[in-house]
C-alpha cells in the first residue's frame, strides 16, 4: 500500500512539473483593463513604452475598477488597473480560480478632487460637508456658504473604484438618489463645466475647465488643494493609491513593463498626466 501511495505521489508531482513547463504561456500582447480614472495614465504608459520597445503590444481599455478586477478573475485581462484596493470577496474569487491571491502593485497616488463650476463662490468644504452633500442631507449651496441654489450632484457609476473609494471614505452612506452617474471623470468634469451649481469628484488628472475645491478634514483643520506636496505628505484628506493587479508574479515582457512603470521614466509620466508618483 505504501509503495502504491509513493508511486501515485511521484506520478502526480512529475505530472504537475511537466505540465507547468509545457503549458507556460507565451504572452503575445499585454492587455490592461480597469479604472477609468487611470485610463489616461495607462494609455500614456503604453504609448511611451511601445515607442521605446517596438516588439511590445499593450492594449488599454477602461470600464471601471470593478470591471477590471472581474476581467482579471475571468482571464480577460493580464493587468487590472484599480483606483481602489481589491475586496476580500474578489481576492477569494481569484484564490478559488487560480490558487493565487494576485499581486498588488502601487503604481501612483491620487488625490480625489472635488470639482466645482468656476463661478461657484464656495472655496472649501469639510469631509462632513461633502458627506452631507453627496448623501443628500445638504441640498442647497447656501447651507455651505454658497448661493441659494439647489446642489446638482455628479458622480461615477458603481463599477468605478473612485465611486467605491469616495463612498467608503467620504460619503460613508448611500449616495443621494439624485446624484447623476457618469461614465468617467472626464464626463463629470465636462458636466460641471456646464453647470453653475454642480459638484462632482474624480481623479486629479482631469481638472481642466472647472474649479478645484479645497478639502479639510474637519471644521478646525486647514483646507488643502490636491497637489504633489499635500498628497505626498498626507495633508490632503482624500488621497489614495492607484493600483495594478496581476494574477501572478510577472515574468518576461510583463515584468519588464511593470518594472518600467515603476522606474523613474514611468513615474515621470505619472506626474505629467497629473497624478503623484510613488517613487
Amino acid at each position: 500500500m505504501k509503495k502504491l501511495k509513493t508511486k501515485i505521489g511521484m506520478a502526480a508531482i512529475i505530472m504537475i512539473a511537466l505540465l507547468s513547463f509545457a503549458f507556460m504561456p507565451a504572452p503575445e500582447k499585454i492587455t490592461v483593463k480597469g479604472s477609468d480614472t487611470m485610463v489616461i495614465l495607462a494609455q500614456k504608459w503604453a504609448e511611451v513604452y511601445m515607442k521605446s520597445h517596438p516588439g511590445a503590444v499593450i492594449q488599454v481599455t477602461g470600464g471601471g475598477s470593478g470591471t477590471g478586477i472581474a476581467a482579471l478573475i475571468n482571464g480577460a485581462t493580464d493587468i487590472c488597473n484599480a483606483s481602489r484596493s481589491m475586496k476580500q470577496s474578489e481576492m477569494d474569487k481569484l484564490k478559488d480560480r487560480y490558487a493565487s491571491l494576485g499581486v498588488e502593485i502601487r503604481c501612483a497616488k491620487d488625490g480625489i478632487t472635488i470639482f466645482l463650476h468656476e463661478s461657484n463662490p464656495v472655496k472649501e468644504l469639510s469631509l462632513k460637508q461633502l458627506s452631507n452633500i453627496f448623501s443628500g442631507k445638504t441640498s442647497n449651496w447656501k447651507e455651505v456658504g454658497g448661493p441659494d441654489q439647489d446642489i446638482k450632484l455628479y458622480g461615477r457609476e458603481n463599477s468605478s473604484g473612485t465611486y467605491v473609494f469616495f463612498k467608503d471614505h467620504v460619503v460613508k452612506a448611500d449616495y443621494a438618489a439624485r446624484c447623476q452617474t457618469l461614465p468617467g471623470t472626464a464626463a463629470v468634469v465636462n458636466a460641471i463645466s456646464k453647470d453653475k451649481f454642480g459638484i462632482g469628484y474624480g481623479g486629479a488628472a482631469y481638472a481642466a475647465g472647472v474649479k478645484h475645491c479645497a478639502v479639510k478634514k474637519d471644521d478646525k483643520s486647514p483646507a488643502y488643494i490636491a497637489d504633489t506636496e499635500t498628497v505626498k505628505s498626507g495633508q490632503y484628506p482624500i488621497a489614495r493609491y492607484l493600483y495594478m493587479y496581476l494574477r501572478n508574479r510577472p515574468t518576461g515582457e510583463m515584468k519588464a513593463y511593470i518594472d518600467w512603470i515603476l522606474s523613474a521614466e514611468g513615474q515621470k509620466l505619472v506626474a505629467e498626466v497629473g497624478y503623484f508618483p510613488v517613487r
Partner: protein
Amino acid sequence: MKKVTKILLILVLIIPMLVLSTGILAQVQVSDLKKEQDTLKENVGTLRDKISGVEERISNAEADLAKLTKIKLSGYIQAQFLHYEASSVSSDNIFMLRRVRVKFQYAPTDGVAFVLQPDFTFGKFVLKDAYVQLNDRWLKTFSLWAGRFNRPAYEVEYSSSSREVPERSRVIRAIYPDERAIGAKLEIAPPSVPLKIQLALFNGNDGLTIPDASGNNINPENNDFDNHKDFMGRVTYTFKLGQIGALGIGAHGYYGKIKANTMDVLNADYTYNKAVDNTGKLIRKNWVGFEGQLYFDFLGGLALKGEYIFGVNGTPGYSAKASVVSPMTSALKNDTLTLTTLTTNTTNSRPAIEKSFSGYYIYLIKNIGKRHQVAVRYDYYDPNTKVASDQIGIAKWDAGVKTVTTNNFTYVGTDPVIATNTPTKTIVSNSLKSGAGDIKYQTITLAYSYYFDDNIKIMLAYEIPMNLIKQNILTLRLQAKF
C-alpha cells in the same frame, strides 16, 4: 446751376423715398425675423418638451434598471459521466446531472441581501440555500445570517463550482451531510484585518439520515426533534507572505447534542455506556478541526490546503414496538374448554452510539497558465477510531432476545368449564454490530481541469479508495456557470 438744383431736388425726393422704402423693407424684414424667431421659439419649445419627455423616460428607465441591478442571478450546471471500476452497482457507466443550481440574490438596500438557491437535479427539487443576510453598514464588520446556509467550515463553504475535485472529502460529507443547516450565524470580519470569526447556532439534525426499525429515515424534512441547539464556531486568519503568497490558518469547533431515540447508548467500541444518563436521551456531537491553506506563487498559482478534524459523533438508535393479536384458538381437555387469544408485543431496539472519529484531507493544486489546473487530494476518514479493521463485523453489543409469556386465565361455568386465556408474549431484541459504518477510508483523487473560459470548464478526475472496499471512480464532468 439749374442742373445742380435739379439734381439736389431729385436727391431730396429720392433719399426720403429710399429711406422710407428701406424703413418699410426693414420693417418687413424685422417682422419676418420676428416671425422666424417666434417659429424658432416654438420649435425650441417643442424640442425642449420632447427632450424633457425623453429625459423623463430615461429617468424612469434608469429607475427601473436600478431596481433590476439589485437582483443578481447566477448558477451552474454540472453534467458528468461516471465509470465505476470493480462495480457492485447495477450500472457501472452512468451519465448524470450532478448539480443544477440557480442562485437568486436580491439586495434591496445596502446591507441587506436575500438569497435563494434551489437545486434542480433530475426528478427532484431541493432547497439548498435560503437566507437573509444583514450587513452592518457602519463598521462593515458584522453580518447576521438567518435561514438555511452553509455550515462554517472550509471545505463546506468552498463552492462546488470552484472545487478542484468532483466531491468533498469523506470526513466533511460524513459530519456535515448536505453541507447546509437551518439556523442563525454572526460573522465578524473587520475590513482592515484578515480575520474572520463565525458563530452559529443550528437545529443540528440537518441532512442526517436517522433510520427507524424498518429502515425509513425519520428525518426527511429536517424538522428538529429535540430542544438542544448545536453551536458552531470558526476563526480564520490570513498571513500575507509578501509578494510570494499567503498562509491562511483557522480552527472550527462543533458542540452539539442529538436525541438518542432509545434508552441505550454505546461507547465507540460497542461497550455499554453506563456514564450516559439513559433517561437524558441526548448523545454528543462534538468535534474540532484545524485548517491551513498555503498559497504560493511558483510559475503560476500553487496551493496546499488541508484540514484535520476529530471528535465524537453520535448516531441515534431506535426502539420500535409492534403488537399482534393472534386469532383465538380452542382446546378441550377433560371438562375444560380453553379459549386462547395470544397478544405478541415485539420491541425491536437498536442502541444509540457515540463514535470517536478522525479525518483529514490535503490538497495540492497547481494552476498552469489561465486554462489548466491539476489537483491531487489525499483524504482520510476513520468513522470509528475505537474499532480496528480486523474487528469490523466482530465488535458488537447484543442484549439478546428476551421472550416472556404471561398467562391470564378467567373461568366461567362448571360443566363444561370455559377457560378464557389472554396471554401476553413479550419479545425484546436489542443489538448493534459494527459494519460498513466503521470502515476507514483513505482516498486519493487526481483531477485535471481545463477552463475554456470563466464560464465553462471540463474536469477529468480519478478517485482511488485504498481501503477494504476498492471501487475506483472515473469522472468526466462538464460545468457551465453563469
